[in-house]
């Protein structure tokens, strides 16, 4: 008896045999198990909420940084549209008008606004209050209405980005002058302008209407947005038809043999290939082998097509699989051929599902950056692209470029561009969800 092996649970068995103790043991054990259960459940909830909190932090930091970019500081200047300065010969020729020295007009009016500023260095700093783009603004005004020459008008001109940052409170006035981008004398001028009511923040239309620029106050997202539109157009026009046709072939026609097996495995693998590898393919194939132009939306669209194809094929196949065989059988029953039954009956029923998949694939392509870096869509491009072969950039790449810029004003513009991009993505995804709810039939 003494040598019998012990299992460590003899005591427990004795206890549990005892009806008095049994109840307590079980109750205690049950309590422990329920505590564990609640702890596990709480961990799950905590995981969900931590993901949501991260999402909230992400959004709030983007919005907090970016909302101010929708406003831009403008300075009101009394501009003398001097005849001698703009068009001394009085010909009124467009060419002469567009070549005139508008920067000089801005400088004159600034000197007039601050007559005390005499020293050369101070004057130079004074002129920098207003953006270098102010001269273009004046030219636009004069070209639109040459009759303005000879008169004096109050014109609101965009302020320099540093002044803009000061007005928006991003530059701390308390910091020592040497560590501040805006010096005390500029702050003095700005305070005077504020007192005169000659400086204010207005809605930033430039941000939505112009292309990229080295000057933050002149830069906008329109160029990148147009580039994105062209690129997406190419992607949509190629990837959707090819994806749907491939899915129909694999799902409906392909004989089950080795070759179609290879295609299937291939598509599943392609869906998980890193996007940057597609960029390498684009660089080697489209640029170096076919000699297509760098930075062109066409090439970007081709690369993104190859990238989104697997997604579209996979979702289209799911949509085709969800159409019940009875539809096909009914079509065969009235004498349709296989092709007819698919084109006339199966495809229309599967189309909403396919479109949902396509939109989701496209929204992913719209946010894609890495492969486009490989094919040179990172160039600094000021002009709005006018076609599929023009050098262009796209919204996410613009975000990447601005994120790299050192100016403080580009931080808010980057965030604002992200907000625009996210708005587009949410719109596209919302449309996909609507499409699914509205048209998808659950069999």
């Amino acid at each position, binding site marked *: 008896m003494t040598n019998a092996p012990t299992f460590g649970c003899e005591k427990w068995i004795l206890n549990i045999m005892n009806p008095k103790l049994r109840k307590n043991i079980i109750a205690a054990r049950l309590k422990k198990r329920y505590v564990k259960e609640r702890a596990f459940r709480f961990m799950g909830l905590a*995981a969900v909420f931590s993901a949501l909190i991260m999402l909230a932090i992400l959004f709030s930091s983007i919005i907090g940084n970016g909302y101010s970019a929708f406003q831009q500081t403008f300075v009101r200047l009394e501009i003398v549209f001097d005849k001698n300065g703009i068009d001394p010969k009085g010909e009124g020729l467009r060419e002469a008008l567009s070549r005139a020295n508008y920067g000089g007009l801005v400088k004159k009016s600034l000197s007039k606004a601050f007559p005390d500023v005499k020293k050369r260095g101070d004057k130079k700093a004074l002129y920098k209050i207003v953006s270098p783009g102010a001269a273009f603004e004046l030219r636009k005004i004069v070209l639109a209405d040459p009759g303005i020459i000879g008169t004096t008008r109050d014109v609101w001109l965009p302020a320099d980005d540093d002044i803009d940052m000061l007005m928006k409170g991003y530059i701390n006035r308390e910091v020592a002058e040497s560590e501040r981008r805006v010096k005390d004398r500029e702050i003095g001028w700005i305070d005077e302008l504020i007192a005169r009511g000659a400086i204010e923040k207005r809605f930033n239309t430039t941000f939505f209407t112009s292309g990229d620029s080295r000057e933050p106050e002149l830069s906008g997202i329109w160029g990148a947005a147009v580039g994105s539109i062209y690129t997406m157009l190419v992607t949509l026009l190629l990837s959707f038809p090819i994806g749907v*046709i491939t899915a129909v072939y694999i799902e409906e026609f392909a004989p089950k043999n080795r070759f179609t097996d290879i295609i299937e*495995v291939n598509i599943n693998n392609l869906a998980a290939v890193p996007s940057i590898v597609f960029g*390498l393919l684009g660089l080697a194939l489209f640029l170096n082998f076919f000699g297509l132009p760098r930075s062109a939306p066409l090439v970007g669209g081709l690369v993104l097509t190859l990238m989104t194809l697997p997604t579209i094929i996979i979702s289209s196949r799911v949509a085709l699989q969800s159409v019940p065989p009875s539809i096909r059988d009914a079509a065969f029953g009235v004498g349709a051929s296989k092709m007819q039954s698919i084109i006339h009956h199966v495809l229309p029923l599967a189309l909403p599902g396919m479109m949902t998949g396509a939109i989701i694939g496209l929204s992913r392509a719209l946010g894609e950056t890495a492969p486009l870096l490989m094919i040179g869509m990172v160039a600094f491009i000021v002009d709005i692209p006018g076609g599929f072969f023009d050098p262009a950039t796209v919204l996410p790449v613009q975000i990447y470029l601005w*994120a790299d810029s050192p100016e403080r004003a580009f931080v808010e513009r980057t965030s604002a561009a992200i907000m625009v991009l996210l708005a587009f993505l949410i719109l596209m995804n919302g449309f996909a969800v609507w499409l699914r709810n509205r048209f998808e039939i659950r069999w």
Partner: protein
Amino acid sequence: MLNLALIAFIITVTSLGFYLGRSRSLKLVEGRVRELHSMPGYYGLYVAMWCGIPALVISGLWLVFDQTVIMKLVLANLSPETRGLSADQLALVVNEIGNLASGSMASKETGRAIVEAAAHFNRLRSVGYASLFSVVLCAMLAGLCLALRMITPRLRTRNKVESSAKLLMALCSTIAVFTTIGIVLSVIFEAIRFFKLISVGDFLFGLKWSPQMAIRPGQVGASGSFGVIPLLAGTALISFVAMLVAVPVGLMSAIYMSEYAAPRFRAVVKPMLEILAGIPTVVYGFFAALVVAPFIKEKGALIGLAVDSGSALAVGIVMGIMIIPFVSSLTDDVLNAVPQSLRDGSYGLGATQSETIVRVLLQAALPGIVASILLAVSRAIGETMIVVMAAGMTANLTANPLDSVTTVTVQIVTLLVGDQEFDSAKTLAAFALGLVLFVMTLFLNVIALYVVRKYRQQYD
């Protein structure tokens, strides 16, 4: 513009062919459709095919080859000494002619010969276009007449149209295969050229990565060593941190969502979590560089730790956030595939819900979960923008997550963005890195997809 005109022209003639074929078939049977083998539309399509396909093939081939052929002709006309130039200089001349021909201004240095060559080029081009138009027109008309003559009421046009459509579909479905082949070939070819300059052993086992090649001999700080180990270590470090964030959070939230959450809660929260998956990676990169990295640096400084501004920790955390929805949706699928009978059996034995999940569900779903983690790892390895924007550029061989490390993808981007000559070891190295990346992710994907497939079969 001319290309657009050509396409519009082909489309017009093709649709004309459609109507001619359709009306001809109807005329043959005097409007009694029942006597036709196929519906009249198929006769139209049949003629349209005969009309359009040869024209499209011809113009496609021409568009691919015209530049090179015409340039060859132009070069053949140049003086012998120009033709005797080296390949590089000849390429410059070709470029210059091409630029001039497409309408850029001639500068003063441009030689007369070049200007003339450009004019010649343009002349040849317009001749080429004219001949293309006439050839296409002839082909279309020939096809049209031939097909119209072939039409008889008994012609099985539907079968013919359908089998060609099937052929077209089969061709489309091979695009995916060609994409893979294209990736493999383009990456391998450039990688082979790279390995001619740098030996495979030095690349795979070298401990030092500094791709700056010396331009002149004896240049300081330009050793040009291409050892991939520090990059792999950096990639592994960042991916590891990302997995530490993504796997617990993703797994637990998937479990909570599929086992505990009330339908209402799920309907609200699930789409919100999916937003995380839809955010472009460039946004995460900006977030990492602007918010997370400075935050960690600051907090590290508070407790006396020197944190690099591009620390692997910050990058890994943000990458983990990005991967959470990926892990959770894959896990969700896997958990849903576990049959209800297993759950019921466990409850029947008196297990609590958490005991059922941990001891039954997770055991049963383990292969699927492992596969989804492998897929997530492959996603992390291939992720580019977050690391490009927030991680460092210098290749440190370290296991300390507070240091800045660089990854394979960062190096590919830095090597290829900006000015580059295509033959330098620097550029080719990017393709070798691409090969490494492709092989690694492919390996992980193949294993994961295989496991998932096996796992699905187990419960089907």
